[in-house]
């Protein structure tokens, strides 16, 4: 009942590749997979996932692997471009052509923006973008949507604040663009001036979706109004110089004192890993859902792969 035939065999490069109906189908299947995990334990028996990680990743890679293993499938791949044929100068196109005959579905993370889109043009198997530079991270977006749907039972009419690095944070770019497609979402952008959401994206959100956007320099201004507070870390690897990173990394820290300003049913999300932008004392607050969010990432990747592989129960 949750399977959508038209997702079978498709690639996922950007959240915009999915219609809202397709996103709903993935989320519903993920809910069911969480409720009835054993029902799906052999769903992908005989299927192989290739993990092509050209830069380090813990969470995304392991959650994809966990997702496939929980459905009875197998995994192969590399997690360091220096130990693969890539180190010998093999192109993305050739790597995916070859891997396509070894596996049934693939996930790629690459530091170059647009690399998964390029790979998909040469891929005979469904290819999922596992993050490309500061560009897109669609499965993190699906994870975030599943988390919101789990805790708020809806994806429209929400007041959402994004806090921290809004300039380079690809999770923010992907999620805000997707939430804007739902009716009535209002966005609070909380960041230092150096790390504001790119003007182009802001203009695009207003022009294309009529989004309501409120910019704040302090978290406290937004907190009382929010359904969701989405925290991000200041990402060292996106900076060109160390001095800028050190100057900005302590900006915007959420602590128990600030949480007093928030509504009792607001949720705090974070794509993880965190550095110090959320104090450990906040972990004990029931509104902090970033660890359950990471767990939901496995279910949403299970649901996504099941759809793209066209396997049905």
């Amino acid at each position: 009942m949750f399977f959508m035939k038209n997702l079978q065999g498709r690639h996922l490069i950007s959240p915009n590749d999915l219609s809202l109906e397709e996103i709903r189908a993935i989320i519903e299947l993920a809910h069911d997979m969480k409720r009835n995990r054993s029902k799906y334990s052999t769903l992908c028996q005989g299927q192989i996932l290739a993990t092509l990680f050209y830069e380090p990743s813990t969470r995304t890679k392991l959650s994809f692997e966990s997702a496939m293993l929980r459905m009875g499938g197998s995994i192969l791949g590399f997690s360091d471009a220096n130990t693969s044929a890539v180190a010998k100068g093999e192109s993305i196109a050739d790597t995916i052509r070859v891997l396509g005959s070894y596996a049934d579905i693939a996930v790629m993370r690459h530091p170059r923006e647009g690399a998964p889109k390029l790979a998909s043009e040469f891929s005979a198997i469904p290819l999922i973008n596992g993050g490309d530079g500061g560009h897109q991270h669609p499965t993190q977006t699906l994870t975030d949507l599943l988390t919101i749907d789990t805790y708020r039972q809806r994806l429209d009419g929400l007041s959402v604040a994004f806090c921290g690095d809004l300039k380079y944070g690809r999770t923010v770019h992907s999620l805000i663009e997707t939430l804007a497609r739902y009716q009535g979402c209002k966005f609070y952008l909380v960041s230092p001036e150096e790390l504001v959401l790119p003007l182009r994206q802001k203009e695009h959100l207003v022009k294309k979706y009529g989004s309501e956007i409120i910019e704040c320099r302090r978290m406290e201004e937004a907190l009382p109004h929010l359904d969701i507070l989405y925290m991000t870390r200041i990402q060292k690897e996106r900076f060109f110089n160390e001095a800028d990173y050190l100057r900005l990394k302590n900006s915007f820290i959420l602590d128990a004192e600030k949480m007093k300003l928030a509504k009792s049913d607001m949720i705090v999300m974070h794509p993880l890993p965190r550095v110090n932008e959320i104090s450990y004392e906040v972990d004990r607050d029931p509104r902090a859902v970033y660890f359950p969010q990471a767990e939901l990432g496995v279910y949403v990747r299970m649901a996504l792969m099941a759809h793209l592989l066209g396997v049905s129960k």
Partner: protein
Amino acid sequence: MIEVASIKRGIVIDHITAGKGLLIFNKLNLASLGYPVVLLMNVPSGRMGKKDIIKIENFVDVDTAMLGLIDSSITVNVIESEHVTNKVRVSIPQDVKGLFTCSNPRCVTNTDSYVMPSFRLHDKKSCSYSCEYCEEITRVNLA
């Protein structure tokens, strides 16, 4: 007034904004053709005041997408037996492949040389294009 004879069979690139004729001449690499080619500059024009014109005495492939990016006022006339048999008004193209590079240094098209940079028109007024791979906006200036 300098007189240039009409051509019997070939291409006339007309209504070039005055001053851009030489740029187009070079971009189309017309010096290497081996056919008679004439570049007229600052020709009086009722509509434009002054214009440039290029006449090529033979049929050649003219990249109208590139012409559109340089100057959207251009018309390309195909001449047969001294008569215009086809007239194409160029415009800023919706989709562009390979004519310029993506402005994003992190874009895969800037490192993997076998990829043809591909763009979709983002804003006609500023002549800016969105990269098909990284979605970064590149402002085009072929001059």
